[in-house]
């Protein structure tokens, strides 16, 4: 086992003791990145010129990490995995990256994503399809595909992700690792290329729950440049991490999790939901109470469409700054309209253009009330409903997706007509800004699957603690991707 595959605490100790240097860790990380680059297609940029930092008492000092390519990084190509920004080198760091830099963390890669985070397959990156390291014929899910693949392969202990629908938490499940997005506003979004501002969260992909706590501590903080950020200086996630979760009350949604809801369920789905039940038993073993609650099915069925309407509407506006005038490759044209049109027509993938059209459509004067405003109302209803359960319960526990990673071949792009709520329910946490974590909870056909824990706003510690306790009772902690051989 190479050093770089260890958890952050262990690496820190080794660095402190001088058993390894920051430079050596970077070298290990870069070597590994180059080794897996071609097969996974996980990277937009491998930062070969990454410089070691001084090892301090800070756990993150001297340790390399990966950055999703929709984070602005000073002097380093930041493309959002889009042709529209294929040569864009920002002159400022995203606040989260800057905060980590202050702690001595070293970015060594920029990881591929679905173009601007708008996809759940990892197939729409301008650098090509990202492959799942457990089975290269399969997808990583998305949009934090490159971050998930590289962390699963042990290129570094963690990589930054962003999560608008489930973009950290779904890829984490497909790659058998941990994915955490804290409460909305705990981490500043300044410098994160926006997809849908009211749903966008920064977060992290790791192999250990403890590492997720350490990195979130490092990224978070009120930022004068982001009005939605809030003061969390009295919150110390790593320091207060505990496996003592006895007495905690969990709930799951029966309409989504019970196998009876799926009369035509595949073997895979059955196994996935059975495995979820096993995890629930484990929770009980840890002294937690688990209750299945019933939520109006119409409300649940509305989740995917609410997400599509709100995210597309905000996206079409958010990405209007991409005209090629100020940054990006300026297009030819005899007037500004032609220049803009040529730039946007050539630069964006068809999937994104479809989303822009949906976004424009639902915002049009004659449609806004019916689609956009109603979506916002239903979003509120869903959030209120879930929050009412958070009055009685500490957290929501749910299976991630319908099973393990899907095959790339025959995969539909993610703006799909499939309204399977099981596939999309993680969006609830984006609607409410809830802290939400995915951890691996088993295997189906030798491929990892995940379970998700979501809590009320500002209950990040509780969510992490429950995940930490569960992780410690399961044999998947810190696991690295092993290619499945059939």
């Amino acid at each position, binding site marked *: 086992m190479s050093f770089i595959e260890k958890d952050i605490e262990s690496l820190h100790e080794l660095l402190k003791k001088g058993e390894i240097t920051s430079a050596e860790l970077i070298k290990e990380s870069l070597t590994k990145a180059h080794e897996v680059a071609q097969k996974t297609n996980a990277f937009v940029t491998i930062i070969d010129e990454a410089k070691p930092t001084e090892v301090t008492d800070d756990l993150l000092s001297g340790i390399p990490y990966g950055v999703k390519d929709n984070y602005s990084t000073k002097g380093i190509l930041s493309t959002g995995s889009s042709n529209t920004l294929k040569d864009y080198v920002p002159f400022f760091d995203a606040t989260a990256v800057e905060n980590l830099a202050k702690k001595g963390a070293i970015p060594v890669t920029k990881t591929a994503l679905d173009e601007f985070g708008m996809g759940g397959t990892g197939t729409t990156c301008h650098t090509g399809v990202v492959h799942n390291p457990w089975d290269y014929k399969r997808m990583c899910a998305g949009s934090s595909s490159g971050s998930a693949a590289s962390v699963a392969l042990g290129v570094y202990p963690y990589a930054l992700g962003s999560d608008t629908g489930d973009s950290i938490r779904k890829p984490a499940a497909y790659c058998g690792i941990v994915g955490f997005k804290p409460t909305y506003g705990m981490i500043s979004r300044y410098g994160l290329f926006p997809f849908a501002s009211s749903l966008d969260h920064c977060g992290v992909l790791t192999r250990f729950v403890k590492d997720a706590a350490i990195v979130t501590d490092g990224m978070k903080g009120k930022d004068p*440049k982001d009005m939605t950020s809030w003061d969390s200086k009295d919150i110390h996630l790593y320091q207060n991490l505990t496996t003592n979760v006895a007495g905690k009350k969990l709930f799951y949604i029966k309409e989504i999790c019970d196998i009876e809801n799926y009369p035509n369920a595949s073997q895979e789905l059955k196994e996935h939901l059975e495995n979820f039940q096993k995890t629930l038993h484990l929770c009980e073993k840890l002294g937690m109470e688990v209750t299945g609650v019933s939520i109006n099915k119409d409300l649940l069925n509305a989740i995917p469409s609410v997400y599509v309407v709100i995210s597309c509407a905000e996206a079409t506006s958010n990405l209007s700054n991409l005209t090629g005038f100020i940054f990006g490759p300026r297009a030819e044209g005899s007037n500004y309209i032609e220049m803009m049109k040529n730039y946007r027509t050539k630069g964006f993938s068809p999937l994104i253009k479809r989303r822009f059209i949906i976004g424009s459509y639902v915002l049009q004067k004659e449609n806004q009330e019916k689609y956009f405003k109603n979506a916002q109302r239903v979003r509120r209803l869903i959030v209120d409903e879930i929050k009412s359960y958070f009055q009685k319960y500490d957290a929501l526990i749910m299976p991630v997706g319908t099973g393990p990673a899907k095959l790339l071949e025959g995969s539909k792009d993610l703006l799909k007509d499939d309204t399977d709520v099981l596939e999309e329910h993680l969006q609830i946490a984006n609607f409410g800004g809830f802290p939400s974590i995915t951890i691996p909870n088993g295997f189906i056909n030798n491929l990892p699957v995940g379970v998700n824990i979501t809590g009320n706003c500002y209950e990040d510690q509780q969510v992490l603690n429950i995940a930490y306790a569960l992780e410690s009772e399961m044999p998947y902690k810190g696991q690295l991707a092993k290619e499945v051989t059939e």
Partner: protein
Amino acid sequence: MKIIPTIGLEMHCEISKTNTKVFSGAKNAYSETPNENVLPVDMAFPGTLPTLNKECVRLSLMMSEILHCKEPEYMYFERKNYYYPDLPKGYQITQNTPPAPVGMGGYIDIEREDGSQFTVAIDNIHLEEDSASMNHLYDVSTIDYNRAGVPLLELVTTPCLHSADDAILFLEYMKAIYQYCDISEADPKKGQIRCDVNVSISENDELGTKVEIKNVNSFSGVRDAINYEIKRQTEALEAGKYSEIEQETRRYDEESGTTIRMRSKVDAIDYKYFVEPNIPKYKISKDWLAKIKESIPELPYERKHKYEKQYGLSSYDANTLIKEKSVSDYFEECLKENIEAKTAANWILSMVLGYVYKEDCQIEDCFVTPKRLKVITENIKNGTISSKQGKELFNYTLELKQEPEQIMKEKNMVQISDETALASIIDEVLNENQSQIELYHQGRTNMFDYFVGQVMKKTRGQANPVKVKEILTNRLSQ
């Protein structure tokens, strides 16, 4: 049949008095150097976010109070989405849909020079950001982002005005308010004030077809655009072709003083307004509003009425004094120097403003400050110099940029009031003008002024004219 024009105005005024822009920490300042006051957010670099300048909100709420508007319970913003190269984000952050605007449904009373009054109904006033400025050259256009994100207050009236004159009076008064409240320099030359105008005509109570004229950048332009539109529409009506007047957007062409069609209402842009998610809604506290209300400074009409009632100035003079805050401040400074109000007003309206207009400068730049004016007027008052000398002294002070006292010494500007001395000069003049004395006694009383003039000539204007007249009357009646 009488044709009644109806006019509505949208007045955009930049808030120029805050340190930073409205949604950006960049400096809020006018600059001739392009792209000097710019942060990444002003150019909409990916990942940048707006941050709300609270001082802009305070000043907007102050305007809302002055205009007797209703404030919203929550402060929040919306995006107005459209593509144009001067709009880096592809949307403008603004407040369009009620109850977003900082002020809704107010009014303000405006006074005409003849003393009559009219009320302008305010639809709303809202806070938004300015766009970048563009310069269209022969074969290339340049963009300057200094202005991008500069705070802008847009004031929308209902269609309630009925003449270009009233429209201009309203705009001028609003401009004065912006200055008095230290919200804006409100200088159209710096592009700080821009107007959209809508005009319709009607023969009855129902409003006619509304034509909107965009981006009129001076008050004289507003006047010309309104009058041109009234004329154009009236001519159509009188020719029986009113149906050809279309609900459309036109643009004012400064060179020709006409308006030119831009687009029909049918082609109106759908701005797809929605709430800006990056600026959290927040409650406007009653305490804060009360504090803001208390902090409203003395408004121009309050000063005007004071000048009329307390100092006995004419409505016309009072109005001229209050138009520009700097002029009114100068006047009040004169009063603090104990210059008598009417004297101060006369000096300002003739000499001081005469100089300011001639030099096209600011009253603050006038070397004759209220303190120096006091020296001049005081010397006139106590008879040391004549009022004619006073005017000379004023001009010398401006020209030489020296203290008036010093100039008086150097130029030996002392009024001759000594009766014996004056009497001997007067006798001299009378001796030299025997035939004129004859004429005077024959009834040519205007010869009196001739004698005074001769005395003044001999004394190079230093003779005390009152005394001269006294002695002269005496001598001639002997």
